[in-house]
């Protein structure tokens, strides 16, 4: 059930990503998509009353969470925020150059900009 919610979340974010006018919102939706993927992996083998995989002599292994996806997802979280900072930097450079964060305006503006550069050459 939780993995279905995670997939639903992923596609809601996907919808928001491709329909939003604002670039900032698109970046936020990529963050949301990452969260959905992380939740999907962490919910593998979930059951109620699950305990964290910490301790030496773990009895009754059925109720212990799977440690492998957790170790992978910790690295995924850190990589996610590193990539997000790159996205924000590109956005800020773009905004300083073209003074807009709207996708449609940006398409027209960058098109004109290329034409101008070609004319100058």
């Amino acid at each position: 059930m939780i993995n279905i919610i995670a997939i639903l979340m992923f596609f809601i974010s996907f919808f928001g990503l491709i329909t939003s006018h604002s670039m900032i919102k698109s970046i936020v939706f990529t963050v949301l998509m990452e969260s959905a993927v992380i939740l999907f992996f962490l919910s593998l083998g979930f059951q109620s009353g699950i305990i964290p995989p910490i301790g030496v002599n773990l009895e009754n292994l059925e109720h212990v969470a799977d440690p492998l996806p957790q170790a992978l997802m910790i690295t995924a979280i850190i990589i996610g925020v590193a990539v997000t900072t790159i996205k924000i930097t590109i956005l800020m450079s773009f905004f300083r150059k073209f003074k807009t964060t709207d996708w449609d305006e940006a398409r027209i503006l960058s098109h004109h900009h290329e034409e101008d550069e070609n004319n100058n050459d």
Partner: protein
Amino acid sequence: MIYLLLVLWLFLAFCIIGEKRNIRIVIYLCVFSFISSISFLILGSPDAAMAEAAIGTFTGIFFIICFEKHRELRFNEKNASVFSRDEDPPDIDDERAVQALLKLRKKARARTRGKHNAKSILQRYLAPGLFSILLFILFIVFLPGGEANPYLRNQFLTQFSEHVGGENAVTAIYLAYRVYDTLFEALVLVIAVVAVIHMSYSSDILVKGGKPSHVGQYVVVVSVLRVICAIVLLFGFYLIMNGHITAGGGFQGGLFIAAFFICRYLVYDIYDLPITKVIRMEELVFLSTVIFAVLIVFLGTINHLPPVFHIVYMIVMNFLIGLKVACGFLILFYRYIAIERR
């Protein structure tokens, strides 16, 4: 309990879709990562929950710095003066070019306003919506069902204390069984720092001058933060040192150490941090992490060492990763504060 939280989670996503104000989007994003942190805790992974909680804060800070600049530039443009500050952006140094760009932009805005009519709503929202629903249904239909095979999980859980040592299975996996993942994660963080410096509008690497933080005037806040930042640093080292016993580890501890430097910036308005030295230090720490991991794990030395050295290996490795993550986030934070915000 978890389902209630997840319904709230989905509701927040719809809120973000319908929201137009940037600052509210960031607040929703922070609440979102708070809720996902609690969900991860309920799903039995305190390590990921701690990392997500710290990361949500950092993402919020980066977005807010970005919006501050964004809002200021828009505000200046509305008040008809193009740039209120002394310096011009390096891409457009001619005033006339700026005016031409603004005129062009007004034209583009008029054109897009025409485009946002009811005519294009169909292809703008309906087609992507149907496409998303179709993909969702396809995913649900082809989702592999049944129980997961617990073989690997039981292997890891029964043997990690014997093979690696410590009490935290997650730390044992990311420091011994799958240490190459951790090394590539550290590499990605180095690349992110390089990319942020390279793709920025300014080619400065050194940080000099900049806006002071407004917090400096607030006497109450400054005197409280002075006490808090020591506790934050202590907590960071506690997480690193006890990473092999309880929840925590290099990543989370490193984030808390970076948070200590943010507190320090807020209290003392420090800009003269030697960023180039921090970058050099990050490279050195990354190199030593790689060498240490290769010497101990990849060459198989860990199988011949007595179990006491396993604990030493995990503590040293956690410490190196923590320093690495702290340096990376410190550079990114100072980059945003001092150069992107300028």
